[in-house]
């Protein structure tokens, strides 16, 4: 690689980092995309420029200053990168471990600089960088793996793995060298500059990919979920119904619970649309705490909701009725507070079991809907259940005979 010119590589790298920092800042300021992560990334890129050196532009500076800039800059860069990564992935982890690791590294570097040891600062920063890089690999794997395929996850984590590997290699290299061989603050050879440039670029690409992935997830969420209550919207719920109907054919039963909030129009007329919205949100909050993770809750429109409950036993309508009764009781006993007033909400529930012969999920939905009307007619705030035997009997089988 002797045809490459190290100072030029460093300048190219500086230009790349400057441009990346600018891009993140622009995305954060102008379009409000990942604002906090973007600012952290911009700071990380600036730190990279400061820490990478530039050939002979700092030739006249004291060696101690140059060394401190290199080691602290590198540490700060990777710590900022990890913080940005956590923001980007919405990790709930506190930054305590990052502060601890980079603080220990910084302390080691300081000790080395004060004692005048050529080796210690580099060893300390290499260890800190390696451990921070390992943390970032874990972060990517945990944050992305659940939602993306293995190949994509591997591609996203690869640059961070390479960073960890390079840091470990550097540590090994330092450990096997003697003090005399080290020339502190020397110009890095061209290949080392190229390696770091490649790493920086790869990590930048990985983060851009993460950002785009987040935007796409946001779009998917907006398309699937009801904006007011956060439950599935009607289109997404109908899709779930189709999926579950397909599972029904393989012996996994489920129940449809249709819910209609009682006297909703009255709330809207008396207390205004804002109260109506709050009531819907309140009801969803109450029901959510009563439902399992596998249950699906969606809003069909207005004050009408639907819950799909996978059943352990294929035709266990009693279990589904129990859940519906629990939902009904929970809403009744947990009134909503609205501008100092206490409003008790109730709802009418219709429970039905979709049958294997139902051509579409809508049939089960219609049966549950009929039960909601029945509950309304019986005075509201109650659960009505479609009789499975009756629906079974009323349905002609394929050869025109009625089942018993």
């Amino acid at each position, binding site marked *: 690689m002797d045809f490459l*010119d190290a100072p030029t590589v460093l300048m*190219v790298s500086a230009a790349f980092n400057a441009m990346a920092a600018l891009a993140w800042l622009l995305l954060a300021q102008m*379009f409000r995309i990942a604002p906090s992560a973007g600012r952290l990334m911009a700071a990380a890129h600036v730190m990279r420029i400061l820490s990478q050196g530039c050939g002979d532009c700092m030739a006249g500076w004291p060696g101690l200053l140059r060394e401190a800039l290199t080691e602290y800059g590198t540490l700060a860069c990777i710590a900022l990168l990890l913080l940005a990564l956590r923001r980007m992935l919405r990790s709930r982890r506190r930054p305590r471990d990052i502060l601890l690791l980079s603080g220990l590294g910084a302390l080691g570097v300081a000790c080395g600089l004060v004692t005048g040891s050529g080796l210690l600062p580099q060893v300390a920063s290499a260890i800190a960088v390696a451990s921070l890089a390992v943390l970032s690999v874990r972060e990517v794997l945990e944050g992305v793996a659940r939602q993306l395929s293995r190949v994509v996850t591997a591609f996203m984590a690869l640059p961070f793995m390479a960073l960890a590997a390079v840091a470990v290699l550097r540590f090994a290299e330092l450990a096997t060298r003697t003090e005399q061989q080290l020339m502190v603050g020397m110009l890095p050879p061209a290949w080392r500059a190229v390696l770091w440039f490649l790493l920086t670029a790869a990590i930048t690409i990985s983060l851009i990919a993460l950002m*785009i992935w987040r*935007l796409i997830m946001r*779009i998917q969420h*907006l398309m699937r979920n009801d904006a007011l209550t956060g439950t599935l919207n*009607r289109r997404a719920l109908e899709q779930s119904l189709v999926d579950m109907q397909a599972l029904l054919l393989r012996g996994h039963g489920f129940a449809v619970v249709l819910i209609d909030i009682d006297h909703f129009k009255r709330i809207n007329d008396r207390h205004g649309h804002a109260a109506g919205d709050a009531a819907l949100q309140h009801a969803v909050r109450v029901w959510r705490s009563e439902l399992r993770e596998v249950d699906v809750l969606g809003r069909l429109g*207005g004050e009408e909701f639907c819950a799909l409950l996978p059943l352990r036993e294929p035709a266990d309508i009693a279990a589904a009725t129990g859940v519906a009764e629990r939902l009904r009781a929970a809403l009744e006993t947990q009134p909503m507070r609205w501008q100092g007033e206490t409003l008790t909400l109730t709802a009418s529930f219709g429970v039905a079991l979709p049958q294997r012969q139902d051509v579409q999920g*809508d049939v089960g939905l219609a049966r549950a809907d009929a039960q909601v009307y029945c509950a309304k007619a019986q005075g509201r705030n109650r659960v009505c259940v479609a009789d499975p035997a009756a629906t079974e009997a009323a349905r002609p089988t394929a050869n025109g005979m009625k089942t018993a």
Partner: protein
Amino acid sequence: MTTAAQTLTLIAATILVTSMATMIWVGMAMAARLAPRASWTLAAANATAATALTLHGARGQWPDTVTLWLADVLAIAAFALLRAAVPAIATRRLGWRSALAVLLAGAMALALLPHEGPLRWRAGVVNGASALLGLMAAWDAYRHLRHAKVRLRTVALLTAPLALIAALMAVRGAVTLTQPGAATDLLRPTEFNFAFLWGTLLLSMLQNATLAFLVLMRLILRIRHLTERDPLTDVLNRRAFNQALEAAHAWLKRGRGYAVVMIDMDRFKQLNDTLGHAAGDAALQLMVRELAPCLREVDRFGRLGGEEFCVLLPDTDIAGAALVAERMRMLVDAAPLRWQGQDWPLSASFGIAEAELGDPRAETALGRADAAMYRAKHQGRNVVQA
């Protein structure tokens, strides 16, 4: 003093950057399915540029046909692909005709010109064609962005890299003709080559970044659309409509009045229960389609929920609103829903109200329109009430 290692490093860095950009665009097209046509074309443009530069860098080591003719044609092809991709970002249509024409003309000229002795004319053809294609791309980007009503400053910012690339190639073309020694061969460590290579490197980064920005902007606009629009009928959702109403109300104190028309489809529940939810959805969509021609650019159309819609008419008094509402009523009445071979008559009840200076909030006028709409319902539906 420029050394051979410096120019080679810069060429290598540009090859690296364009290869990386190729990967990013392929990723955009495959994994994220973002503007796939434009992304694939841009990936191809970057890959072609990287190949052309690699071949150029191997001059003297590999056969001349490859390093001269092919490298030159590929250089023009890279710009042609760039030129084709730019309109596709906004319109999904590639601008390939003009790009192909310039590419073919350039390739023909290069085939006719000798590749021995002074190479100034070959270099002139390559740089001239590239500058022309770059200019076309910049012009296209400018036109599309202006058409999309983007602010002039943003437009300038986004089209500048393409324009600068065109300028850089044009300057190089001029220099190859006037001082052939300094510029025909990129590998020669002249001051001009050094400056040109830095320009190429920075601009290729910048241009890829801005184009990626434009693609991202599509995503952002999509998100904005999804948060503001009702998914079924594509009119404003209640939150967005309320925002528009608040804005209009703020203008009221400065002397610009507004009126609201409340629209409620008649017997919607009956339709839903008889023909099913799908028919109900279709009826709402049909009504929105029918009402669209009554709206001016400044009017705002929103769905407040269920079968209830509202139109905000800025700079309109009650008489104007009554005219609009009456026309809307007739349009809805005249367009029945065709559902599974049968016609189902549609109609709607309308309540109109004009904002008054004393209204404390925007919702006050909305409340009056709502009350008027209820009166219309009680009068037997399919009427306008003030």
